[in-house]
């Protein structure tokens, strides 16, 4: 997209308005789509125009769709939703309040194995860390392959594991030896605890788990497009004796 978007406020406002109106051509519309990923002011202007003009939709005459359309839609829905349940408050965060910044990850993993309250015995787990190596999420999988994430209360001054307005955190998995991460779903806006019952990628030892910052709706390309906020590698947890 070589188009440079206008910087003049009025021109930007009009661009957002015409995007919502639908009068931009495919190339311009794609340029706005792409720009909204990083330009939250533009995304906000588009959202405002959408709200303002939405009542105009009432001028289209209602018409019943073909009777088999729902059946068709249902047949094409992905078997596993890529969106993850809204979080409940993190029950693990108390564990981490006193967590020293310098504690080693090995110790973190051991602490989790030892103290994880009422959790299933995980098959794999890891601690996802930020680029400052501070623990941010505990990731674990159960014997059936479900992946659970629990947010860790961040140490003071570390990034909050929450996406800014208009952006979303997307979870990815990468099998060892593979080049292309696979999306495991979008995380809820607020940190907490989430479970992906049937992830798109089977958890295996040494699998890389990472969370990137993406535009609303998730990466448009199927690959991480934003910065990697947190990452970690799954390690196998021995089965209970």
């Amino acid at each position, binding site marked *: 997209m070589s188009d440079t978007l206008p910087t003049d406020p009025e021109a930007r406002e009009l661009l957002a308005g015409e995007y919502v109106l639908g009068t931009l051509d*495919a190339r311009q519309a794609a340029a706005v789509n792409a720009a909204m990923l990083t330009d939250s002011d533009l995304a906000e202007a588009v959202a405002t125009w959408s709200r*303002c003009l*939405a009542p105009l939709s009432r001028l289209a005459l209602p018409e*019943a769709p073909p009777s088999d359309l*729902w059946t068709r839609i249902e047949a094409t829905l992905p078997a596993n939703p890529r969106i993850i349940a809204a979080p409940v408050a993190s029950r693990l965060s108390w564990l981490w309040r006193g967590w020293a910044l310098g504690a080693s990850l090995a110790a973190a993993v051991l602490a989790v194995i030892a103290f994880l309250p009422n959790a299933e015995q995980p098959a794999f787990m890891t601690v996802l860390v930020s680029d400052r190596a501070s623990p941010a999420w505990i990731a674990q999988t159960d014997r059936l392959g479900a992946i659970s994430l629990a947010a860790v209360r961040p140490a003071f001054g570390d990034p909050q594991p929450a996406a800014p307005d208009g952006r979303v955190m997307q979870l990815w998995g990468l099998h060892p030896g593979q080049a292309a991460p696979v999306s495991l779903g979008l995380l809820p806006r607020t940190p907490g605890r989430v479970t992906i019952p049937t992830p798109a990628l089977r958890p295996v030892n040494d699998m890389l788990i990472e969370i990137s910052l993406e535009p609303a709706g998730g990466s448009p390309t199927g690959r991480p497009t934003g910065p990697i906020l947190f990452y970690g590698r799954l390690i196998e947890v021995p089965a209970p004796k």
Partner: protein
Amino acid sequence: MVEDDELAGLLARVAIGDRAALQAVYARQSTRLFGTAMAILRDRTAAADALQDAFLKLWQRAGQFDPKRGQAQAWIGQIVRHAALDAARARGREVLSDDPSLGDAAVDPTALDDLSAVEDGRRLRHCLRQLDEMPRQGIVLAFVHGLSHPEVAERLGTPLGTVKSWIRRGLLTLRECLA
């Protein structure tokens, strides 16, 4: 609005992978939404494809809906409009401006009365009435029927440059009025 609260509740269930909730959204909204897509595409097969595309997006993005930032019905409608506009762009938006089914009802000034059913609609109608007839028609044709600038120009028998400037000025007037 009770109806919209119910839709918002259904979207929250869709966000956690509840197919029955998506089907309930479809049952409540598909006639309205198919009308939205038909107004833009004027072809039942293409409109059905656009609606299918939009419901797949809803399935994947329902978690992005934030009731604090807008109404569920408008949010869903916008996903359908963009799916239909994308389809219209992909097929090159062949000009169908002499199509008799194209929007005479919608460019009739009295059609704006239909907007008064909802509070937001009343404000928008008030603001649209501050525009001159032709810019208003251009904006309605573009939004409701997905017409491009050249299509609006042909439809209204007006030079392209004039239409572009009408729409720009019309949008700025609307923004000021709605602010």
